[in-house]
């Protein structure tokens, strides 16, 4: 369901932002620090979240609804996926490696594009991660402009 092109975009060092919602309908915004499309299940992704972000983890545990938008730093080309969290677990060593690589790519891109010093951006990076597997239902083009929010062509089936 997630095309190779979209997977490549989401797995690059793009900026990942996350929206969740609690059972009472209150949304929460946060960031993700790495995403991987599961190789054997292309409609599922594994995202890395700040393990200390209690409201987000609480939302996911109770309602599971989640949206993730990945934005390419230089071009702002953006894709949003929406789905449901189906499992959590502490980040593995592989997750930690992926987060390290992701952060390096993201920080390098921001530094190169916007000139922000690396050590400032690094202040956002959490110390501990939790891995969350999401069953993806829908994908949208979220690039700024009049078409933002349109379903991706691959979704029109």
């Amino acid at each position, binding site marked *: 369901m997630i095309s190779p092109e979209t997977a490549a975009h989401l797995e690059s060092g793009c900026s990942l*932002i*996350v*929206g*969740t*919602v609690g*059972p009472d*309908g*209150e*949304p*929460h*915004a*946060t*960031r993700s620090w790495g995403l991987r499309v599961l190789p054997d299940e292309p409609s599922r992704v594994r995202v890395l979240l700040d393990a*200390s*972000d*209690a*409201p987000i983890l609480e939302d996911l545990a109770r*309602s599971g*609804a*989640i*949206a*993730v*938008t990945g*934005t390419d730093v*230089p*071009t*702002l*080309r*953006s894709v*949003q996926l*929406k789905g449901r969290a189906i499992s959590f677990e502490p980040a593995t060593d592989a997750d930690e490696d992926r987060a390290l690589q992701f952060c390096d790519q993201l920080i390098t891109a921001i530094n190169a*594009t*916007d*000139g*922000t*010093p690396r*050590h*400032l*951006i*690094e*202040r*956002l*990076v*959490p*110390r*501990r991660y939790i891995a969350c597997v999401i069953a993806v239902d829908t994908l*949208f083009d*979220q*690039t*700024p*402009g*009049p*078409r*933002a*929010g349109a379903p991706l062509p691959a979704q029109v089936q």
Partner: protein
Amino acid sequence: MTAGYDPETAPRLGDLANCFEGVVPAVIATASADGTPNVTYLSRVRMVDDERIAVSNQFFSKTSRNLAENPRASVLLVDPTTYDQFRLTIVYERTERRGPLFEQLRSDVDAIAALTGMENVFKLRAADVYRVLHIEAIPLETRTSPAPGDVERRARGAATVQLAELSARLSRCPDLDTLVSTALDGLADLLGYEHSMLLLLDETGKRLYTLASRGYDAEGVGSEVVVGEGLTGMVAARGAAMRLGSLRQMGKYSRAVRRTFEEHGHVGPGHEVPVPGLAGADSQVAVPAMVLGQLVGVLVVESTEPVAFDETDEALLTVVAGIIASAVEIDFAQERAEAAEPSTTSTARPPVTGNDARLVRFFPVDGSVFVDTDYLIKGVAGRILWSLLRQYTNDGRDEFTNKEVRLDPTLELPEFRDNLESRLILLKRRLDERGAPVRIEKSGRGRFRLVVSAPLRLEVSSPPEP
């Protein structure tokens, strides 16, 4: 409400002023009635008061539709000077489509659109106002602490005293040329604005031309901006100051939006609007120079640092621009008064001769003047130069009065307001900047001298056939 939230110690909206400069894009999460979240970046967020923020709404987006069903939202803000991050819980309150708040956000959006020439396509539809229920400082388990002075602001501790000193220096200037240089030098020396430029409104009221600049690789004297285009042009059109602290981010956003419009055929392929300015500028303040309710020009300062300027800068520069505008008007009034007095004729001198004559070509179609193959100047200033050079080569004249230039019918200067003095300053500066074989020296009030350093050969050219 988040566990552990203490309203006594929680950050206040007023503490987050830097977050609203747009350097780090804000994030908003909303949810539909059925509990499906949506998360996206915001193009512009502003603080309304101690309890409210306003968000620009350009498109009827999913965020808007969600808020119609569920008024609660969550916003992530980052302070660009420290990268401290805050999560705001907000609730939609109202939408404004007119009034000061709408105009403020419209100005922001117009500035973004102007960067890629989309003023007529990319427009603010509404300003959505939200009440902030609480603010959570997201703990940073940091590897490093922010170094002090990551984003340095100029020390302007005694700004009032420095402004007074600049005002005193300007009041001692004997002519407009000196005043313009003193103003830009004073802005740098006294107030720390290293990159500044002064543009004046031309005779038609449709363009601004750069009279002087400081702190740029190329001085750019004579470069033009159309009123209404780009930040400087918008300031001229509105007669109101504008301040941007995240030009790189805004440019990136503007290009992304433009690409989307182009891909879907809403606008034709375009390019960024070329404007005179600092390479890599991230912050810019432009203030109108006005007197008696009339626009005289625009004063611009720039910095490569993000969020380099605040309201204090706007205020300081507005005062300086007002002084410059008054001086331009006084100079103009004096010129008009002296134009009524009889002029004296100058003595003819033989032109500089020699074998290595420099070719000066004039294109009547736009008044442009080239020396050999190098472009020198165009428009009114170009026509003035050509008229002076003709008199120099034909009659051997090198002394002129402003009055006789003003009365020269070949220049077609407007009767009401000809900006002659500022055009002569522009011409003088441009000749100096380009190292031209001819210079202009002031020889008295309302008088100047043409100083020619090489033999000249004049030629009138026509543009090539299309």
